[in-house]
């Protein structure tokens, strides 16, 4: 039975590790489907983590911390929109600027407010999100298979984990079953068609960026107020970029992007699990190599397996109406 519980704990960590990726990928889908490149998922996630941690430290409630994180991320999204939608600046440059700004800003503010470079104070139990144990989880644990599935895999996660997987069908529904989704997809494919249909292209892109800001805030809050109890320097650790890769791998589609996020999450869970483990015939694999696994996978998948990832037609292009 040890094998089974190994598997269960591997799946459990996959779900947890994939959570910020899923939020970020869904956020990316909104921005990029509207035709705006979003490299700044990384920076916004970091910002959200910082603001959520600081907010719940001072206000004593993690939900208020999350709310502040949402406000901060929407502001950053609007900044990105102001530079690249209104003023038609280069979208990648705007994102890179945001990312660099946030790395410096969070470190500096933490130093100024708490006297520690890039660290915020540890949150106590009231100030952070706790694991949710589903009803009867303990009682059902001993039932074979179902017990493992319910008690060890489904139960005992932070609220963000459940929200992340719930967000996927919702995003799918919004993008493909509502008029907002139709306009969103159209504005990323052919903004002129949207304009001539009497819809404001710029407003549409700002709306998409606002949703993007809300979603990415959840990813950051998950990092600093749920799985960790404080913010530390560069704690997003490339997850924003990884999520972007997952979104491209998933061809800008919520369902396939979810699968890609889970895949990345799984390799990460696996590498933690494999550290220091002797594998038959191979022996112990160097830790560095194992840690590089998710990133190697990203490169291989993006380079080889995805085939042609067909991006929204108008992505990266500012909309210019008059010649």
């Amino acid at each position, binding site marked *: 039975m040890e094998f089974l519980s190994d598997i269960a704990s591997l799946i459990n960590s996959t779900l947890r590790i994939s959570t910020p990726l899923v939020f970020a990928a869904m956020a990316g889908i909104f921005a990029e489907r509207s035709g705006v490149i979003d490299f700044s998922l990384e920076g916004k996630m970091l910002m959200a983590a910082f603001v959520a941690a600081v907010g719940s430290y001072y206000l004593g409630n993690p939900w208020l911390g999350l709310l502040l994180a949402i406000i901060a991320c929407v502001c950053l999204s609007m900044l990105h929109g102001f530079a690249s939608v209104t003023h038609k600046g280069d979208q990648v440059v705007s994102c890179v600027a945001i990312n660099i700004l946030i790395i410096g800003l969070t470190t500096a503010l933490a130093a100024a407010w708490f006297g520690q470079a890039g660290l915020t104070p540890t949150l106590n139990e009231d100030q952070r999100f706790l694991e949710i144990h589903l009803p009867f989880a303990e009682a059902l644990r001993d039932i074979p298979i179902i017990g493992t599935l319910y008690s060890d895999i489904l139960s005992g996660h932070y609220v963000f984990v459940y929200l992340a997987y719930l967000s996927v069908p919702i995003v799918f529904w919004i993008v493909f079953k509502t008029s907002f989704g139709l306009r969103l997809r*159209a504005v990323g*494919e052919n903004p002129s068609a*949207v*304009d*001539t249909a*009497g819809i*404001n292209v710029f407003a549409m892109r700002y709306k998409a960026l606002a949703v993007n800001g809300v979603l990415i805030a959840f990813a950051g809050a998950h990092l600093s107020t749920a799985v960790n109890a404080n913010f530390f320097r560069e704690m997003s650790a490339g997850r924003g970029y990884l999520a972007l890769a997952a979104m491209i791998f998933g061809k800008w589609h919520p369902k396939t992007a979810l699968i890609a996020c889970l895949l990345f999450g799984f390799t990460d869970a696996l590498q933690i699990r494999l550290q220091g483990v002797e594998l038959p015939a191979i022996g112990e694999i160097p830790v560095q190599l194992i840690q590089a696994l998710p990133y190697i996978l990203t490169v291989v998948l993006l380079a080889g397996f995805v085939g042609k990832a067909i991006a929204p037609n108008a992505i990266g292009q500012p909309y210019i109406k008059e010649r």
Partner: protein
Amino acid sequence: MVSPILELSNINKSFGHVHANKNINLQINKGTIHGIIGENGAGKSTLMSIVFGLYQANSGTIKINGKEINLKSPRDSIINGIGMVHQHFMLVENFTVLENIILGFEGETVFGEKLQKAKQDLEKLCQTYNFNIDLDATISDLSVGFRQRVEILKSLYRGAEILILDEPTGVLTPQEVDELFKILRALKEEGKTIVLITHKLIEIMDLTSEVSVMRQGEMVGHTKTEDTNKEQLAEMMVGRSVLLRVDKKEIKKGETIFQVNNLSVKDDLDVTRVKDVSLEIRSGEILGIAGVTGNGQTELLEALSGIRKVESGKIELFGEKISDQDNFLNPRMLKQKGLAHVPEDRQRMGLITDFKAHENLIFGYHDQEPFSKSSILNNREITEYSNKVMQEYDVRPNSPNLITSNFSGGNQQKIILSRELNENPKVLLVGQPTRGVDIGAIEFIHQRLIDMRDRGAAILLASVELDEILSLSDRIIVMFDGKIVGEKENKNVTERELGLLMAGVA
């Protein structure tokens, strides 16, 4: 007296320094087909974009049914019963017909009842006008003719009473044009008002009852179509009398100097676009390639001019092999052998539009005397030469230091032409020589091509304008789906015959 359904007074619009519309006055009567004719850049599209609410006029008023309205966005125009079919279709390619049509007018937040109702309404509309459109088809699977119908259907569904069509026939085969005209006449019978923007005189004479002429941003005349003729309209458009027919001497055919055998060529996506094409061109002959855009003409020209690799087959110049699947000469070597190329896409391949005119005029010869010596450019020689050539080719404005993108399409084409014809090539490959070129310049360019032919050059002319093919060529081949589907001497060939071949049905 009929009251006008649409009335424009004193419309002005500027883009930066360009005054695109100057004090335009226009009245369009209900239930008519009204033509607006003018050269490229005369301001027709700008004017209609203002009526459609896409651009906002700097000054002036617009009245519909006698009531002044303020058009801030296309939404305002659509609500007031104005629909527009743009030259470049405003469709999302990976959406279905239905999705494209309801976009912006969904009527509900979550798709459900209204979507079903829209579908029923559209099916009824399709039946009424015999459109034969599958509402669930994806746009990218539809032919250009059908896409245009989708655009018309879209406008009708949104309640258009006035339908503006901007250069609707540019991309259609002659048969598709006939179909379109049938639809437009039917719409007129229904009481709809149609505004047709075009630079083709024949369409005006065919379809409209009234016509307005624009020149350089100004409205230069209104008249009933029955009171005018093509020559008179052309004169109004250009501002001087124009020769509409090309004067051409009898052909003096020489020997074959350019030969292509069983050529196949793939495009960048690895799709075979030219399939087993064989042709030959004799000295003193213009061979025209007719065909709808995208049937392999582009790739054929690129392969012949040494830009694109040959998949199989061979190309011979003066009996000497220049390209096959193993090796090919690059454009520079071909130029030395007497082959010149005026590319289809002049702004992308023919010119570096950010360069000054004099730089583009000598590009390719810039490392030869007298333009340079020991790798150093001789600016005095270049300027002198440029002044001379620009005068000879009537490039306006005659200023070699102007950035090339500031010249009009016709003048840009003259710059390329002067460069390519400079060394008296034996073989000349020309793609779409007059696309986006005004009538005055067309006349000049055609005359130059005829002169080259009379001097014994072998010319290959690819054009989507059938008029151009018919008036210049000595022999015509038609391409469809990468293959040559017909070859005819240019005697008594009708547009209809060629049209059927172009559509792949004959």
